[in-house]
């Protein structure tokens, strides 16, 4: 963005007004966003405080904050956060790598691609949570099962999107590479992969969300730690404050991860 900054020129009045309006709109939108947040939190707190909403069922912003502080003092909170974060990051990374590698293999061999197509469609439409009990039998309960769940949820879509990106490459560009005598490796690394970068970044963004779904599902199924575990635990001992506090933390973590990935888009999507 910085290099786009124009040098100081004498803009016309219309141009000045236009730029002013853009800046003003930006401020209004930002203000609106903050206002929505403040109103939501304030109303929630007010309704809980006056007893219109039963804080036992609906918790309240202040109770969520105290619960988080209490949990943090207990020392276990960090273990739960770290466990979920770790499972999500590993699941996200493995699913992305495995998905891209499989997509490359399927791009390489058209016959294999056609053989695998119906199975990919079936796997894509299968609700992966249905495999939950099986996963526990296969890899045992705990972190392993959660990571596997995470991978299952992300990997099929990664394969399908990346494969689509690979095979939709302009046929004349392929012809160009061939006319320069490129072999298949060169076509892959010099054309297909860089050409699919925008789709890859979209896939990353989708996978951030999906891997959190996988982690929470996995932790619901069986776990001894993690935010999903904490949500489950809170609801079982009827402490909905704990549930809401965990959900709040989850929101913050997922949003944080999303904002780490999205600058890539600005940089490479053009």
């Amino acid at each position, binding site marked *: 963005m910085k290099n786009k900054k124009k040098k100081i020129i004498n803009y016309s009045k219309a141009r000045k007004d236009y730029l002013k309006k853009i800046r003003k709109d930006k401020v209004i939108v930002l203000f609106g966003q903050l206002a929505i947040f403040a109103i939501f939190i304030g109303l929630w707190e007010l309704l809980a405080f006056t007893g219109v909403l039963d804080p036992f069922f609906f918790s309240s912003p202040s109770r969520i904050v105290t619960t988080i502080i209490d949990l943090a003092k207990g020392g276990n909170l960090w273990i739960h956060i770290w466990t979920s974060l770790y499972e999500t990051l590993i699941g996200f990374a493995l699913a992305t790598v495995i998905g891209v590698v499989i997509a490359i293999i399927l791009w390489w061999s058209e016959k294999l691609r056609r053989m695998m197509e119906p199975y990919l469609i079936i796997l894509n439409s299968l609700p992966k949570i249905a495999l939950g009990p099986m996963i526990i039998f296969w890899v045992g309960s705990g972190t392993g099962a959660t990571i596997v769940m995470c991978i299952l949820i992300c990997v099929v879509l990664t394969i399908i999107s990346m494969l689509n990106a690979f095979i939709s490459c*302009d046929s*004349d*560009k392929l*012809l*160009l*590479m*061939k*006319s*320069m*005598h*490129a072999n298949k490796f*060169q076509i892959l690394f*010099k*054309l297909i992969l*860089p*050409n699919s*970068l925008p789709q890859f970044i979209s896939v990353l963004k989708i996978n951030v969300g999906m891997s959190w779904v996988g982690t929470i599902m996995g932790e619901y199924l069986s776990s001894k730690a993690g935010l999903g575990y904490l949500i489950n635990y809170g609801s079982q001992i009827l402490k909905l404050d704990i549930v809401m506090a965990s959900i709040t933390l989850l929101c913050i973590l997922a949003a944080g991860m999303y904002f780490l990935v999205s600058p890539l888009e600005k940089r490479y999507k*053009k």
Partner: protein
Amino acid sequence: MDNLLEFKNVSYFYQTKENEVKALENVDFSVKEKQFTSLVGPSGCGKTTILSLTCGLLNCSSGEILINGEKVKKHDDRIGYMFQRDHLFEWRTIWQNIILGLEIQKKHKDEKSLAFAESLLKKYDLYPFKNKKPRQLSGGMRQRVALIRTLVLNPALLLLDEPFSALDFQTRLKVCDDVYEIIKSENKTALLVTHDISEALSMSDKIIVLSKRPAHVKEIYEINFEGASPLAKREDKDFGKYFEMIWRNLV
């Protein structure tokens, strides 16, 4: 002058699931060294097929294609290909685009090839844009880059598949001139495919008119217009006469 390229009774069929498509039928012509030859014919008649056969991406169903008297091979270094669109890779700089072919053929560390690439950039006014991305260049400049990308590999025969048809009319005349000048000053033999008769007339020493699909050679014209550039050749007094003859032959 010797024949650089010879098509001898070449036929070609495309195999599709539904049927066999006969694209070429006994195509017979030759291209002399340093000559600029154009293939003119209606859309879909088989012009691109002729180029694909020439560079060995397809094998002819019957007949023979000779380059310098030898049969074409799959990976023939003597041939360079230029497409309708420039197909510059947006993620590469102009320089990286230009040495793409050198990279593929593992010559990108070869001093002489790199020096040649650099000299072409300088000669054709693209040196200041060396480190720019393709999207920062105009359509005409991009097409020049595409031509240089092909020339860097130093092919004897250039195949040009409607390289100007994606440009608007103004740019087209200018790029036509540029490409013509580059090809002539680099002493290349060129085979241009086009469906634009005046484009063919303004650039060629020889025009081969093809029939509808399956393509066969309908007529061959030797052209000898006054003028150093395509734009100047358009002023020749016989331009209109030839245009009309070829146009009649096409429809």
